[in-house]
């Protein structure tokens, strides 16, 4: 009985994103069932899955990974990091330049470059985190500086040359590993998700982060150090940004600091919100944010399939997102609970009558 109740609570938390997803699916089913066709294509003797769903799952990878990190920062600090995209450009530059200097591209050098790249993003995010956690600057302001100058720093690190990373390893990361039908970026989402899941299992980060996000003072009086928890959330976000940046670079096979992870910060914040997480911090659900990321991507793909031009897509997306976010707003939610309460109250009354 109890387990049933808690699993229901889980469902209630994710109600809005799930309904949004269902509506999108239904809409596409009515519009064109072909939307969901998944085929197996063979190229050079290797199988690969193809279709809209596959492309949605693939393209949303960077967003999904960053959304996970953004959720943690949002929960602990009650604010958002708007510099994830531009720091992503820095990460891309660090990755490419390290990789080029390490000699011929191999699995080992790529891992090495990724680690260096993680180190770089962690440093940048610790800078943001210190401003937020120690100097109590609002997250948006604390990250505004890197938001405006991050891509320039990316250019400075990268230099003027555009390196072509022509290597099967890079292609395996950005597109897919030969013989595996699923795209590697998606597998990386799963990997990051699993690592975070393990981290959540082996530590108290969920309890600590939520406690700090809800009531920092009380958390401190229970022996939690809010500063450390906030810094930790920025470190995790930094790692997420590094992984997303490497995916982005590998996808194109080259680095363009200007477009790498462009505008991803706003989509990431949206994903967090659509996932039912409060942007004011506190309780959170990573799965909601990941779901949010895929909803945003599905919306984009749906609009593209309907033939909406790329210059109009944002406007239509905005309309859909407003609807989703309004549906999840506290006001609408309280309407729903009021309705539910009324119904259960009348049910109570009915059962009472039955007894009497």
């Amino acid at each position, binding site marked *: 009985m*109890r387990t049933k*109740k808690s699993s229901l609570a889980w469902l209630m938390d994710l109600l809005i994103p799930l309904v949004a997803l269902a509506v999108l699916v239904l809409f596409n089913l009515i519009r064109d069932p072909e939307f969901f066709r998944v085929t197996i294509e063979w190229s050079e003797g290797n199988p690969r899955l193809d279709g809209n769903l596959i492309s949605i799952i693939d393209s949303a990878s960077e967003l999904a990974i960053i959304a996970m990190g953004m959720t943690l920062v949002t929960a602990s600090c009650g604010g958002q990091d708007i510099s994830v995209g531009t720091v992503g450009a820095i990460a891309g530059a660090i990755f490419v330049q390290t990789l080029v200097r390490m000699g011929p591209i191999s699995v080992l050098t790529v891992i090495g470059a990724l680690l260096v790249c993680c180190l770089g993003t962690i440093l940048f995010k610790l800078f943001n985190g210190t401003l937020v956690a120690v100097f109590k600057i609002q997250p948006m302001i604390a990250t505004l500086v890197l938001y405006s100058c991050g891509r320039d720093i990316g250019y400075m690190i990268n230099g003027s040359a555009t390196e072509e990373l022509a290597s099967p390893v890079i292609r395996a990361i950005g597109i897919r590993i030969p013989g595996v039908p699923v795209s590697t970026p998606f597998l990386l989402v799963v990997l990051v998700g699993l690592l975070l899941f393990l981290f959540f299992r082996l530590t*108290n980060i969920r309890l600590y982060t*939520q406690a700090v996000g*809800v*009531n920092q003072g*009380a958390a401190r009086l*229970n022996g939690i150090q809010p500063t450390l928890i906030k810094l930790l959330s920025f470190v995790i976000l930094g790692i997420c940004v590094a992984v997303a940046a490497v995916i982005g670079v590998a996808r194109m096979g080259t680095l363009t600091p200007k477009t790498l992870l462009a505008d991803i910060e706003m989509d990431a914040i949206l994903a967090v919100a659509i996932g039912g997480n409060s942007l004011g911090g506190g309780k959170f659900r990573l799965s909601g944010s990941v779901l949010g990321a895929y909803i945003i991507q599905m919306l984009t793909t749906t609009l593209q399939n309907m033939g909406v031009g790329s210059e109009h897509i944002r406007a239509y997306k905005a309309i859909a997102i407003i609807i989703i976010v309004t549906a999840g707003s506290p006001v609408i939610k309280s309407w729903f609970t009021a309705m539910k309460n009324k119904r259960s109250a009348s049910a109570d009354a009915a059962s009472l009558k039955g007894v009497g």
Partner: protein
Amino acid sequence: MPNETVLTMRGICKQFPGTKALDNVDFTLRKGEIHALMGENGAGKSTLIKVLTGVYEKDAGSIQVDGLPGEARIHSPQDAQNIGISTVYQEITLCPNLTVAENMFIGRTSGQIVHWKDYNRRATEILNSLGIPARAKQELSHCSLAVQQMVAIARAVDMKCKVLILDEPTSSLDEKEVEMLFGLMRDLKSRGVGIIFVTHFLEQVYEVSDRITVLRNGELVGEYLTAELPQVELVAKMMGKDLNDMVDLEKVGVKNAGGGETVYEAKGLSSAESRPFDFHIRRGEVNGFTGLLGSGRSESVRAIFGADRVTGGEVKVKGKAVRISNPKQAMKNGIGYLPEDRKRDGIIADLSVRDNIILALQVMKGFFKPMSKQEMKQFADEYIKALQIKTASQDTPIKSLSGGNQQKVILARWLLTHPDYLILDEPTRGIDVGTKLEIQKLVLKLAEENMSVTFISSEIEEMLRTCSRLIVMRDRKIVGELTGDELTQNHVMKTIAGGEA
């Protein structure tokens, strides 16, 4: 005139899912009377107030307000205000960064050009006529809490309110401020305002009110003239049982002076908020810090727990010199601390009762050693039962519990860590009488089990009942230590007040 009714509520019913919050409740308020609304937490006091102020819609019943024909229609707080029902809540709902005058007239100007000069003058007049020690142009946040509350009342009075609801107005005031507030209430009473006074302080009810209405479990127990209802009977009516419980507690009055080992000892301990002081407590001892608000009693125990930045002093725990400069170190040394301000420093509002119970223990176990869900559930179950915490389930967010039950959750949190030394700062503030007694009994029981407890309360009687040693503070200094025969209300008062004997 004294019997002219200004507000009549009849047969009020309000149903929430699963509970009947109000069942056929009557309430009558007369012109120029102070009417105390009493009941334990969950009795229906706040629901009744919220129905009256339009926060909740009533399911059945009628409300009539003097001077309005027929039934009063109250569907929103705005409606209530328009027909002359004003509320001043426990937490100040004014804007602290505006001036006193701005706060009094904000939202009431007619929308055209505002003549602040006129308003300032009018505000000064009202403040003077009510004897409120504030200046019109003063920023509200510079006034004491009591004065802020009085400004809120002045605003209500100036809006020609007939019914003034004061919801726990005195819980964060010291005695002098309470007197000031009572003066204002009596003044308003003489002007014919009907005042509904909601409070947990029994003494205050007897000091200022004319009539008492008691609710229990959402039902009306009765309406009484204060002069004709002895205090013990009031408590009995609120709790719905005989007074054996209270008598029991008096019997326990064999207080634990503790013995043997000194569990905690501080020499010259000081923090950013408190001056250097010496303190010690023995195993199984219950002692208390007393003094007026602002005397430094809370700041002292915060220094012991490392809640404020510790600036000096030597600390020994069980005879061993230790350093306690933050809460975690205090916890590791077996010290627990229930903070004075439950809402601000105690509860993690959005988290479940379970998470709130296991929090401190989990932190002590460490970041990398999470308890299993099963373990957490067991602990939560155990303490919900042991302390009789009323909650729908352990997954319920703590914020939806009543104040008394929230406090029990925080108590459970610290008991779960099995501390050697537990500091309770105002554990019974804003809590119904029944729970108060439960907590007092619990403290004595813990002491019997060899826990050392420091108990702080604004109600001296409560401390006399539980503590074997009272440390008296004045102006942030320890001015006396009372034990044995000295533990009488008179003696404590004298020591607090100072003045050479």
